């Protein structure tokens, strides 16, 4: 099921994750969120941008704890916990946020 944005078609896997990391652009994240009935705020973007930076360096999404720590530093300590991240991304920060950020889905016993 390809994702259609601005007249362009982008390949995705069965669960809607982008097939090619390099296809990613902010409009795709917006389109995925809209499809889920969500709207991306600045705080969502803090998470998405951090995921992309981390992935660029380490070729993997950050551990939940690494993510919460980083977000706590950026948005304030009261937001540096997984409860807050689940408020932003109810389907799970690791999975839903990774999808919007164009990252592959984390696999394994997670």
């Amino acid at each position, binding site marked *: 099921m390809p994702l259609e944005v601005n007249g362009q078609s982008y390949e995705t896997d069965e*669960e809607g994750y982008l097939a090619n990391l390099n296809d990613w652009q902010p409009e795709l994240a917006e389109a995925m969120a809209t499809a889920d009935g969500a709207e991306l705020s600045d705080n969502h973007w803090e998470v998405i941008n951090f995921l992309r930076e981390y992935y660029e360096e380490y070729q993997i999404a950050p551990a939940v704890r690494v993510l919460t720590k980083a977000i706590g530093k950026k948005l304030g300590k009261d937001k540096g916990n997984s409860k807050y991240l689940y408020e932003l991304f109810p389907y799970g920060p690791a999975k839903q946020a990774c999808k919007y950020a164009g990252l*592959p889905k984390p*696999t*394994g*016993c997670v």
Partner: protein
Amino acid sequence: MAAAEFDTPVLNEYPVIPRLEKDVMKHSQPFVAKAEFQEKLGFPGELVDDWQQVAIDKMGELKDKYRSLQVFLDSCVKCGACTDKCHYYLGTTDPKNMPVARQDLFRKVYRRYYTLSGKLFPKLVGAEDLTKEVLDDWYSYFHQCSQCRRCSVYCPYGIDTAEISMAAREVMDAVGKGQKYCNEIIGKAQTIGNNLGLPEPALVDTLEGLEEDVEEDTGVKVRFPVDEKGAEVLLITPSADFFAEPHIDGLIGYAKVFHQAGISWTLSSYASEAANFGMFIGSYENMQKLALRIRQAAIDLGVKRIVFGECGHAWRVAYSFLNTLAGPFDFLDANYPVPQHMCEVTYQLIQEGKLNLDPSENDDMVVTYHDSCNVARASRMGDMPGGQFEIPRAIIKAVCNNYVDMPSYAIKEGTYCCGGGGGLLTDDLIELRVKGAQPRMEALKNVVDDYGVTHMAAICAICKSQFSKVFPYYDFRMDQIVSLHQLVSNAIVLEPENVSEGDEEDATDNEDQAEAA
């Protein structure tokens, strides 16, 4: 990512055998593995043209290779003892999730091609041709078995549906119809060293972060070493322990235990996975590849002991098969079991009084314990029968003042699977996972209502992830599932003035010199 549409099962005061609803879970099938994942493991990329013959031949090969498989296929007398024992049947009400019916999907084909009566009078003996419809049923219902072995406890012949389901999956892989979740993960573990695909720099970064966190919390520098040659213990733990919650809190617990006991340890970036998904698909070859990575890491790092972290299926493979797959381990210290479970390490240290524990640190919780299926029914801990039940409970009781067991039918050898084991912990099977958790949720609710239980501890990465995901469906909070070693971590009292490892070595050196003098 719209929410899947299905009803969450009702929780009763006591287990009720549900009315049968034929084929209600026939639609439940996981994503099929793409060619790239299949071929990496040596399986055909897609369904081969002569799949029927390939499948029948593979079935013949497997029944000859594993005598147990043929015995299980031949010996069922349809007594019905297993019918209400499967959590997937209880949660879904689909009669094909009764263990005997699940076995019969495979058995009827076996009878048709490998028994005289089935060849001559198929209709009289319930034998059937292997058709596309049968293959579809296999794909649905052998991915609705978590290989937890609960049914085999109640079977008077000890027929193990898990082995039949592994064989069925192996046949499906051989014809090119593998499951995406398992096969993609096995491929990752074989190239990167773990199921997550976590490369060494990310592992090191994550662990450095944990060292900072623990020092901030406790004021003590507890180390999380990677690839340290000459360490005494090689810790093999599921990669979820580096990544997910509450898993990572368990990892912190292991580190604190090693720290306080003065045991030097290391993780390996080459063998950074305990969970062996080769078992889920019945593939000896793929299971062996991961086991050999562990052996290689142990040799390269020159360790004396191998210890496994909290991972149910890993412990089954480790305890029951590791020596066959990758042994002999004669280069390790023979004074310790090969391999050893982290719970055995912690339990022994508690017995010896080597851990300074303050159970009141967990006084905000009333804890119960979920026996993970593969630890409970496919392995052991310690040197006494039932050690796998008693040791984890003994640890919890040493670190918590409030402990309550769930009802007896739902624990120990009768434990219910979490609903996500055996390669089913994937979002495409979420309906099955939620429904399959019903018996465990019911038993948990029982002690929550009657005894005020607030948290459930587990020692398996799959159980922990599964419960965090399905708890909200049953009105529990996702953080009500905790790692066993998370409780240990809370209770362990680290004194800032503790001599650090380096100093301790100096101290020993000084003593040696003093003795020499």
